[in-house]
């Protein structure tokens, strides 16, 4: 009986080498105030110079979001006072953003949902304040780094849907390669506007939620806020237009500004930056640089490799992962088998080492070789796991490793049986338990055998021998 309307203002930090209006490094996490110069500190007499790499990335996003692009980049000054903003105005875009009227199609609960994009604009970031006791410290390393703001129409309907949208949006910007898109690291920041109204009555009074720094908090905050607003209306009240903050310790939203102060940014054209016309060649390079969008790729991979929705979605979440998968398939791997390894052992290795898959020593071709060796019985599962772990870290030839380390599969009964006998004989009580039908103990004996053979024993053969020997079927 209620409709919910959620719109987002998303800021992404662009991955340029240098800041948007000067040559300072755009590296995150350096010593405070080391990536600064007279220009980004707003020294008297300095002038901004547009970094065309930042503009290139902005237009990539404009293209990926299917926006109508502006033929010229036009900047304005947005005037407001903030201690960490060196010039006390921000160079931003207002009347003529780089892109308008776009859309994002994203997967949600097995369906395709659509969010319209109001506009995309390029601007400079402010610095950072650090409050230490009664002192306020300022770090200007971030001042002047390129920010791209993406404003959506209020097309989202729930916290869950918004979370799914943001997750997809993150994948999208990472796929294009313009941003790390990480909310926790602050290179994707998001404010949300939410209103509710009785079904069919249109937008309600909106509340702005600020500083939500994880996609989970986005969901929690919006769900809380939706219920809060419905509660007010149910009780006969009306929602105040205000700005609220998510309190992550109490899981509630709290008031930040009661009444929306009417902000007057006094925008006017930035006289230091005449309209910049990138030209046809630039726009052609932007178009050529755009990769297949994640959802398109997901659908194509589902069909091409008979993957489930979930499997393809997992692979396409990171462009590098999907690229890896396709390269390994091209090298001869069977898709399901490959998926099983990538989402299992390889994901664990990536997690443990912190090394992204594409940066490891294990090329898609080598993984394909390991899977082939496994398939044709040259090695067994446990050896394959060992091999993959080793190849992930070090440079080796998979086939050479088998000879080098003596990893060839062992399925000769006459070689395995003595080892089985030894293990069972040394553990009579366990053998008795297995005999009574306690199958758990089988795993213990398998472990002993694998330990003794260095994982080379064929598991099926070993299992059969253990069972038979315990039961006295062989002696």
């Amino acid at each position: 009986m209620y409709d919910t309307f959620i719109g987002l203002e998303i800021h992404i930090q662009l991955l340029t080498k240098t800041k948007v209006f000067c040559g300072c490094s755009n590296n995150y996490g350096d010593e405070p105030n080391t990536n600064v110069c007279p220009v980004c500190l707003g020294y008297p007499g300095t002038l901004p110079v547009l970094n065309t790499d930042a503009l290139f990335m902005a237009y990539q996003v404009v293209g990926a979001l299917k926006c109508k692009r502006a033929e010229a980049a036009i900047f304005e000054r947005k005037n407001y006072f903030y201690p960490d903003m060196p010039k006390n105005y921000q160079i931003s875009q207002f009347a003529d953003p780089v892109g308008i009227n776009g859309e994002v199609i994203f997967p949600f609960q097995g369906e395709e949902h659509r969010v319209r994009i109001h506009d995309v604009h390029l601007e400079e970031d402010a610095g950072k304040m650090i409050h230490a006791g009664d002192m306020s410290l300022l770090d200007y390393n971030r001042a002047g780094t390129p920010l791209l703001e993406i404003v959506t129409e209020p097309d989202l309907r729930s916290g869950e849907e918004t979370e799914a949208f943001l997750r997809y949006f993150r994948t999208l910007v990472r796929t294009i390669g313009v941003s790390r898109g990480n909310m926790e690291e602050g290179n994707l920041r998001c404010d949300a506007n939410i209103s509710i109204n009785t079904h069919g009555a249109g937008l309600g009074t909106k509340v702005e939620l600020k500083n939500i720094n994880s996609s989970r908090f986005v969901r929690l905050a919006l769900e809380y806020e939706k219920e809060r607003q419905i509660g007010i209306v149910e009780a006969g009240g009306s929602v105040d237009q205000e700005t609220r903050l998510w309190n992550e310790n109490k899981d509630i939203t709290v008031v930040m500004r009661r009444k929306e102060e009417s902000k007057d940014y006094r925008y006017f054209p930035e006289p230091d930056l005449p309209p910049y016309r990138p030209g046809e060649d630039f726009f052609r390079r932007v178009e050529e640089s755009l990769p297949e969008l994640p959802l398109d790729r997901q659908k194509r991979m589902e069909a091409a490799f008979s993957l489930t929705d979930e499997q393809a979605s997992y692979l396409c979440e990171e462009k590098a992962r999907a690229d890896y998968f396709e390269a390994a398939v091209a090298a001869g791997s069977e898709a399901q088998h490959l998926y099983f390894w990538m989402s299992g052992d390889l994901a664990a290795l990536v997690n443990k080492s912190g090394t992204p898959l594409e940066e490891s020593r294990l090329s898609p071709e080598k993984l394909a070789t390991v899977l082939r060796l496994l398939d044709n019985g040259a090695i067994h599962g446990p050896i394959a796991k060992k091999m993959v772990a080793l190849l992930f870290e070090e440079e080796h030839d998979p086939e050479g490793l088998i000879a080098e380390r003596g990893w060839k599969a062992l399925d000769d009964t006459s070689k395995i049986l003595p080892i089985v006998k030894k293990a069972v004989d040394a553990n009579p009580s366990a053998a008795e338990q297995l005999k009574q039908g306690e199958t758990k103990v089988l795993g213990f004996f398998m472990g002993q055998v694998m330990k003794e053979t260095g994982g080379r024993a064929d598991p099926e053969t070993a299992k059969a021998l253990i069972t038979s020997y315990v039961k006295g079927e062989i002696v």
Partner: protein
Amino acid sequence: MSDAALFGWSSTAEYCTYLDENDKKVGAFLSRTGADEFQSALERSRSEASDRSPLRGMPFAVKDNIAVKGLPLSCGSKMLETLSSPYSATAVEKLQQAGAVVVGKTNLDEFGMGSSCDNSALGTTHNPWDVARVAGGSSGGSAAAVAAGMVPFALGSDTGGSIRQPAAFCGTYGLKPSYGVVSRFGLVAYASSLETIGIISLDAQLLRTVFDIMRGQDPKDQSSRPFSPQASEKRQGEKPRIGVITDIEGLAPAMESAYRERLDLIRKKGYEIVEIELPMLEYVVPAYYTIASAEASANLARYAGIRYGHRTDWADEHSELTEKSRDEGFGDEVKLRILLGTYVLRSGFKDQYYLRAQKIRTLLRNEILSAFQKVDQILSPVFPTAAFPHGDAGLDQFQQKLADKFTATANLAAIPALAFPAGQSEGLPFGLQLLGPEFSEHKLIDTASEFTELWEPKTAPGFREWR
């Protein structure tokens, strides 16, 4: 190379003594390069600059709103009294590469806002012709330094006439180049879309040399443009057709008669003079002040007592820190323009003021450009009066603003303009101004040199010739 090569001085020391003595009377400089530094800069210039460079070893002065690395950049304000610039303006760097040497930073109306140089918070500059009178503004220090013979040329900045008006008051040439032809990098911003770095000199050929060295597109200034004079060189070799503005209402009587006498002289020498009308001139002053103040309100917002410049002794919070620092650091004229600029950009008022001023600017530019279809250059007065006395006896602030209509036109239209000495009237220098289409700087200098041959501009008392 010996000290004697310093353009007619027997030694650097003799030159420095002359500067010290003379500046006690004139007060052109806010700061001077130390004698040792000056000497080593001279030596560096002689060893590094090409011996063909006409500027090698030549001293020059720089208005104190243009950055020179390691020197103060006070802008004539208490706000920046303690600031030492960490970098140099592109224009200054180019001149230094050509061998010119900075001798000091000159006085100005605070942040370039004013027409007398009396709006400086840091010093008083007197007109070398009569120390009871102002040098003009805002580049008054630069004009006075040149007129007194302390430097052969000086850099100034021109937002609405700030080079040409003091040049006229002091009897020198003053060039405001086409917008964007000289890089603004290093010029402390007052009204970015109007202002440009320019030159004050008593020698027209030196003015040309300095201009040719300073100009050029600068990767550090995206509003800079390449100098392309082709557009204005159609009537090669012929005498330029001169347009004169008939609407010269408001000129002081002595100025008006001097102006008419000069016109007669010019006409008699065979120049074709065509009367033109520029009805938009009436709106120049309000449009200029609206745009300049709007831009100033943003440009000066950075002076908040946080990173550099004046900071109040104590404040409990950020807004108080900003308020007190700005209140203590800025003079009244600066505060007035910031408030005015903030007002004209306010939502609800923007259409009525700022956007309307921009429309006037476009109309004025179109009007001027169509005038240049009929004439090659436009001759006009620079300012309605000669140098006025300091203090209450002079023009009040409002009258000074109204008087900017002849000069601010060129800034609104982004075209070059040159003030040149037109002789004396009642013992004070009298200047005229030539306006030309974009990139016609060389032709303006040619015409002005020809005109000045028609009369005998004198130099100020105490002036010493440069060789």
